[in-house]
């Protein structure tokens, strides 16, 4: 069900804000980084931090998951944005792919 309605924000009663409560039914996509024998751990951490804006600890977690498990899901969401992230990861020469969530 989709609906759009106006709400009054508590901090500024004079301003009406449109809140979009539509729920997307499209299945989300995931961005997966795969292990490779050439790229260094430090480079993968830095690339994840720069592209996704993650804190160092979170980027390290994903990198070590790639290193030990062979892959890590680093992001999920809309297909177009997932494609953009994979494009950027490929430009950074990391091995990355798109997957439908749950595949």
């Amino acid at each position, binding site marked *: 069900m989709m609906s759009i309605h106006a709400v009054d924000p508590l901090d500024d009663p004079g301003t009406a804000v449109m809140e979009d409560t539509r729920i997307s039914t499209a299945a989300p996509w995931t961005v997966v980084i795969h292990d490779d*024998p050439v790229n260094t751990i430090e480079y993968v951490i830095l690339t994840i931090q720069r592209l996704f804006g993650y804190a160092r600890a979170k980027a390290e977690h994903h990198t070590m998951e790639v290193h030990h498990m062979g892959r890590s899901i680093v992001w999920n969401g809309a297909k177009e944005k997932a494609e953009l992230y994979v494009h950027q990861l*490929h430009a950074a*020469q990391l091995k990355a792919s*798109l*997957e439908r969530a749950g595949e």
Partner: protein
Amino acid sequence: MRLYEFTDDGGLQLLAVGPEWMEKLRRLPAIARGDGAERFRAPDPLDPENRSPEASALREDWVDLVVPDLHEVFDNQHCAVIEVLDKAQPSEFGQWMLLQQKLLQGDAATEKNEEGGEGECELVDLTIPPELVESWYGALNQGRLALHARYAESESDLDSADDASKSDAWKHARDHYLFYSRLQAPLMQLMQMGFEGKDFENDDQEDDEEFDDYPPF
């Protein structure tokens, strides 16, 4: 022995670079575009097992729209390397090193040169400006990815010192791979410092033996 320095603005200066290093750097674009490069120049955006109609359409889009962009990015990285090599300057530090070497070796070195065995080699300094640091890292990475894809028989194969049973081509590839890898280390440091907003201070390289396998002459 200090063989590189960070510049105050976040660039990298390679000091007393000899002909052997220069040759390895000049060969980088050809190596990076050679056999083994398809892994990163034409990457699959999906799991290779995914053969659905939707996957097929996405792969076609990738080849049409993304791959040309990747080629442009990667080729620009090669241009960054060539740009710096073309601006190489004679190395004062290198001349000083050669002088010290002559003084240490004395007559033996002089006689060797006179016999025509080894002439004086030209040593140069290379300055990688901050805006080209990332491109240099990328270009070196391309070289390593291509060499690994072409020559490595196992994950750590090209890192191996055990080369008794290996071909000359493999040894040649290993030399290039390790050289590119070691040159990436200070570039990586600069990229990290830039991302974290740190000052570009030179660390103490007195104990840094990473470059010892690659003397400039």
